[in-house]
C-alpha cells in the first residue's frame, strides 16, 4: 500500500517511562504524517479542507505549522469555484462522494479557464476506491495525484483518544459500511506498535468481535520490522472492546455530568465549545462597570449573554485545572464546588495583606500569575454554569428526566408514553421526543401497534414529513419496534429487568455517590458495568456502602482504595454477559503473534511489570462523556489501574439519532 508516511518503527518517538501511557506520542505522529504529506509537494500550496476535519486537525496542529510547510492559503472544500493563487493545490478530505464530486468540479472549472494547477488529494485516513471511481467518471482522475494522510487516534485528553469519526454508528449499523471497523483495527494496530501487543483482548458485541478478528489478522500479517513490535506490552494489560450496539440505552439518556450537560445543551466538537466572547475575554481596566452588570442574574443579563458574539473555546483539563475537577461531577454538585474554589481563591488573594516583608511580598507576587489564571478559569466556568443551570430547570428538561427514570424503572410505561405524546403536542425538540420513544421501545420492549401508529402520525404532522426516513431507519435498526416483536427484534432484545438485578443498573439515591451510577443520578451505564465485570469485579459482587445516615460512625469517609485485580476475563459473570445480545470474547495474545481463546487451562495471569497498568477501553461506535466520567471514577477507586479510553468518536443522544435521518 503506497504511503507517504515513514515506517513507524524506524522513527519511534521517545516515551516518558514515568507516565503510564503517554498519548502525546500519538499527536506527534499525526503531526509528523501531516508534515510529510505536505512536504511531498514542493513549493507554496493552497490547502482545501473538508470542514469535518477542521476539529481533528486543530487538535493535532496549528495554522503556524501549516504555514511553515508552505501552505499559503486555506479554503473550505465547498460548492463554488476555487480561486487558488498557487500552482499546487492540496485537497484534504474524508473519502466521501460529496467531496470527490466537488474536487472534480474544481478541476473541470480550472481546465475550462485554462488555469494550470498541480492537484494532490490526501484522503483521510486512507484511499478509497469510491473516490477514485467518481474522479474517473468525471474524467479528472489522471490530473490528480492521490495519496493518503493516515490520521488515526487523536488525543482529546491525556486519557481519551478519538478517531473523530462523526458518523461511525450510522455507517456501521445503518449503512452496513464497515470501513470504520477496518480503520479502527489499523489504529489499534498502531497502538500495539507503539506500546506493545495487548496481552488480552476482551469484549462484547458482534462488530466488536469482528474488530478483534481483524486486529488479530492484521497483526499476524504485519511484517516483523523491529524487535519489540511483537512483544507483549508492559504498560497495557488488556484491550476491552465495546460495541455501541450492545448498549443503546446509555446514549439515549440525558447526560448529567458537567461536561456531558455542556455537550448536550451547547454542543462540543473535538473538545471545543462555542461560548460568549465576554466569558473568555481577559479582564481590562474597564472591567468594573461591566462586572457589576454581569453580577445581575436577571433574565435581561442572560439574554444579553446569549446574543453576544460567540467564540470557540477548547475545553480541556490540559490547561484548566478547575475544569479537571469539575468536568466529571454530577451537575448538581458543580455549583457547590465552584463556590468552594471561589472561596479558596479569595482567601489566597487576601493572604497578600499578611505579607509584611519583602520576601513575603515577592512570594505572593510569584503566585499572582497562577491566581489570575485560576480566576479567569473560575469566571469562565461560573459563566458557563449560569448558562447551563437555567436549562436544567425547564419543565421539558425535568419532564424528560422523569420519563427516562420511570422507563428505566419500568414504572407505568403506558403513562410514560402518554407523557411523550404530550411533549409532541407541545412541539418539544424532535430529538428529545425520539430519544425518549426509542428508550421506551427498548425497555418495554416494543410499543403497542396502535399507540405507535398514533405517535408516528403525530410526530410527522408536528415536525414534518421529512422525518419519515428517520422513523423508518429507527425501525430498521429496531430502536423503534412494535409489539409483538419480530424475530429479528427478538434477537436484539435487551432483558432489562434481569440485567437490572444482575448488574445492578439502577441504584438508590443514597448509593449513587459510591457508584458509577452517579453520572445519570441512579443509572449505571451498561457499557461501563461490562467493564466492571472484567476490571473491577468487587464493585458488582458487593453493593457499596450507602452514603448518608446509615453509614454510621464514619460519615463521608472514603473507603481506602483497593488494589486493582489483574484481568482474568469474565470470570464470575459469564452467565450475565451471555444473557443479552452480542458475541462475547476473551483472547490472550501470545508474543509470537498467535492468540488463544482463554480457556480454563490457558489462564496465564500476566503480571505486569509496572506497578500501575493501563487498560484500554475502545468504544466501537462512539462513547458519551458520561461513560468517560464513569471509567475515570472507576480508576479513582482503585490503586494500580488507569484507563485509556479510545473511541471512534464522542457521541450524544441527539446527534446519534439525527445522524440516522439519512442513509446511503
Amino acid at each position, binding site marked *: 500500500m503506497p504511503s507517504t508516511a515513514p515506517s513507524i518503527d524506524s522513527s519511534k518517538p521517545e516515551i516518558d517511562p514515568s507516565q503510564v501511557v503517554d498519548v502525546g506520542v500519538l499527536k506527534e505522529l499525526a503531526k509528523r504524517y501531516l508534515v510529510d504529506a505536505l512536504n511531498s509537494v514542493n513549493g507554496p500550496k493552497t490547502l482545501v479542507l473538508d470542514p469535518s476535519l477542521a476539529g481533528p486537525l486543530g487538535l493535532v496542529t496549528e495554522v503556524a505549522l501549516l504555514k511553515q510547510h508552505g501552505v499559503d492559503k486555506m479554503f473550505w472544500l465547498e460548492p463554488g469555484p476555487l480561486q487558488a493563487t498557487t500552482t499546487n493545490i492540496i485537497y484534504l478530505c474524508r473519502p466521501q462522494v460529496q467531496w470527490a464530486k466537488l474536487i472534480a468540479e474544481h478541476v473541470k472549472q480550472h481546465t475550462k479557464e485554462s488555469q494550470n494547477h498541480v492537484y494532490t488529494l490526501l484522503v483521510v485516513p486512507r484511499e478509497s476506491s469510491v473516490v477514485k471511481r467518481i474522479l474517473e467518471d468525471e474524467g479528472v482522475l489522471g490530473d490528480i495525484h492521490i495519496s493518503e494522510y493516515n490520521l488515526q487516534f487523536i488525543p482529546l485528553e491525556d486519557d481519551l483518544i478519538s478517531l473523530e469519526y462523526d458518523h461511525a454508528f450510522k455507517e456501521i449499523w445503518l449503512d452496513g459500511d464497515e470501513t470504520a471497523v477496518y480503520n479502527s483495527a489499523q489504529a489499534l494496530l498502531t497502538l500495539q506498535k507503539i506500546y506493545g501487543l495487548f496481552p488480552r483482548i476482551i469484549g462484547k458485541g458482534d462488530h466488536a468481535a469482528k474488530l478483534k478478528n481483524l486486529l488479530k489478522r492484521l497483526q499476524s500479517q504485519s511484517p516483523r520490522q523491529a524487535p519489540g513490535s511483537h512483544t507483549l506490552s508492559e504498560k497495557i494489560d488488556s484491550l476491552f472492546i465495546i460495541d455501541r450496539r450492545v448498549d443503546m440505552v446509555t446514549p439515549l439518556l440525558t447526560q*448529567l455530568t458537567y461536561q456531558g450537560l455542556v455537550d448536550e445543551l451547547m454542543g462540543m466538537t473535538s473538545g471545543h465549545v462555542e461560548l460568549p466572547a465576554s466569558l473568555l475575554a481577559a*479582564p*481590562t*481596566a474597564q*472591567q*468594573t462597570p461591566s*462586572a*457589576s452588570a*454581569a*453580577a445581575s*442574574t436577571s433574565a435581561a443579563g442572560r439574554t444579553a449573554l446569549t446574543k453576544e458574539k460567540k467564540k470557540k473555546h477548547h475545553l480541556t483539563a490540559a490547561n484548566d485545572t478547575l475544569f479537571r475537577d469539575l468536568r466529571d461531577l*454530577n*451537575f*448538581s*454538585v*458543580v*455549583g*457547590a*464546588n*465552584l*463556590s468552594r*474554589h*471561589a*472561596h479558596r*481563591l*479569595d482567601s489566597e*488573594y487576601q493572604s*497578600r495583606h499578611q505579607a509584611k516583608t*519583602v520576601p513575603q*511580598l515577592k512570594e*505572593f*507576587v510569584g503566585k*499572582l500569575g497562577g491566581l*489570575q489564571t485560576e*480566576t*479567569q478559569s*473560575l*469566571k469562565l466556568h*461560573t459563566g458557563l*454554569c*449560569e448558562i447551563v*443551570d437555567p436549562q*436544567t430547570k425547564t419543565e421539558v428538561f*425535568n419532564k424528560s*428526566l*422523569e420519563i*427516562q*427514570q*420511570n422507563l*428505566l*424503572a*419500568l*414504572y*407505568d*410505561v403506558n403513562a410514560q408514553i402518554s407523557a411523550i405524546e404530550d411533549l409532541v403536542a407541545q412541539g418539544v425538540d424532535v430529538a428529545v421526543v425520539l430519544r425518549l420513544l426509542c428508550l421506551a421501545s427498548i425497555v418495554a420492549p416494543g410499543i403497542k401497534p396502535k399507540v405507535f401508529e398514533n405517535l408516528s402520525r403525530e410526530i410527522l404532522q408536528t415536525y414534518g414529513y421529512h422525518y419519515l426516513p428517520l422513523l423508518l431507519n429507527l425501525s430498521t435498526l429496531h430502536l423503534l419496534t412494535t409489539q409483538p416483536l419480530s424475530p429479528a427484534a427478538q434477537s436484539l432484545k435487551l432483558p432489562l429487568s434481569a440485567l437490572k438485578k444482575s448488574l445492578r443498573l*439502577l441504584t*438508590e*439515591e443514597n448509593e449513587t455517590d459510591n457508584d458509577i451510577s452517579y453520572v445519570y*443520578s*441512579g443509572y449505571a451505564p451498561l457499557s461501563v458495568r461490562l467493564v466492571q465485570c472484567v476490571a473491577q469485579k468487587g464493585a458488582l459482587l458487593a453493593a457499596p456502602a450507602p452514603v448518608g445516615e446509615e453509614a454510621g460512625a464514619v460519615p463521608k469517609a472514603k473507603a481506602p482504595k483497593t488494589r486493582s485485580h489483574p484481568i482474568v476475563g469474565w470470570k464470575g459473570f459469564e452467565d450475565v454477559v451471555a444473557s443479552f445480545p452480542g458475541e462475547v470474547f476473551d483472547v490472550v495474545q501470545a508474543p509470537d503473534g498467535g492468540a488463544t481463546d482463554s480457556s480454563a487451562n490457558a489462564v496465564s495471569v500476566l503480571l505486569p511489570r509496572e506497578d500501575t497498568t493501563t487498560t484500554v477501553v475502545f468504544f466501537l461506535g462512539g462513547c458519551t462523556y458520561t461513560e468517560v466520567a464513569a471509567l475515570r471514577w472507576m480508576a479513582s477507586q482503585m490503586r494500580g489501574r488507569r484507563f485509556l479510553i479510545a473511541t471512534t468518536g464522542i457521541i450524544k443522544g441527539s446527534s446519534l439519532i439525527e445522524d440516522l435521518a439519512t442513509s446511503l
Partner: protein
Amino acid sequence: MKVYSIAILLVPSTGTQSTLLTSATDLSSFSFYQKGTVGEFLTFFSRTVAERTAPGQRQTVQENAYTAHVYNRGGSEQLAGVIITDAEYPVRPAFSLLAKVLEEFTAAVPQASYNPNPGLTPNSIAFAPLQQYIVKYQDPRQADTIMRVQQELDETKIILHKTIEGVLQRGEKLDNLVERSNNLSQQSKMFYKTAKKQNSCCVIA
C-alpha cells in the same frame, strides 16, 4: 529630630581640661534671645561628657531634652567628638557620623596645630566640613546610607502593595464570582425524578 551641635575636642589623657577645637551648631529652632544661652550650654555639655569618656569609649548621655553622643577616639591625637541631638534622633547614624568626622579632621588638620599647642584658643580651628555635616545630617535617613536603604525598602513595600492592589482591581472582581458561585450552589438540586422507588412491591407493566 534635630542635631544641635557637632564638636571636636582635645581630651588629654592626663586628665586636664579638654579644649574645644572646632564646632558647628544649628540653633535655628531657638529664639534669638535663647541662642546665646543654649550655645554656651552646648559647649559646656560637650566638654563635660568628653572629659568623662575614656579613650576608645563611646557614650550617650541624656540631659533633659538634650542627648549627647560621645566618641573618644583617643590615639596620639587625643581627640573626641560630641554630637548633641534631641531625644528622637537615632543613635546609630549619630555615631557613624562622629567616626566619620573625626577621621576627616585627623586627615585634614595637622596634629601639631592642636596637640600640643599651648597657645590654642578654643574653637579656633577652621574645619568647614563640620558645618556641612550638621546641615546634611538633620535628616539622618537621607544622609546615612543604611537608613536610606531601609527607607527606600519601606517605600518599595508600599509601592508593591499599591501595585498589587492595582493589578487586582483590573482583574475580575473575585467577590462577584464568589457571590455568583454561591447562588449556583444554593440552587442546585439532585436529578432524581422517578416517582417509583426500587423497593415498591407492585409493578404495573
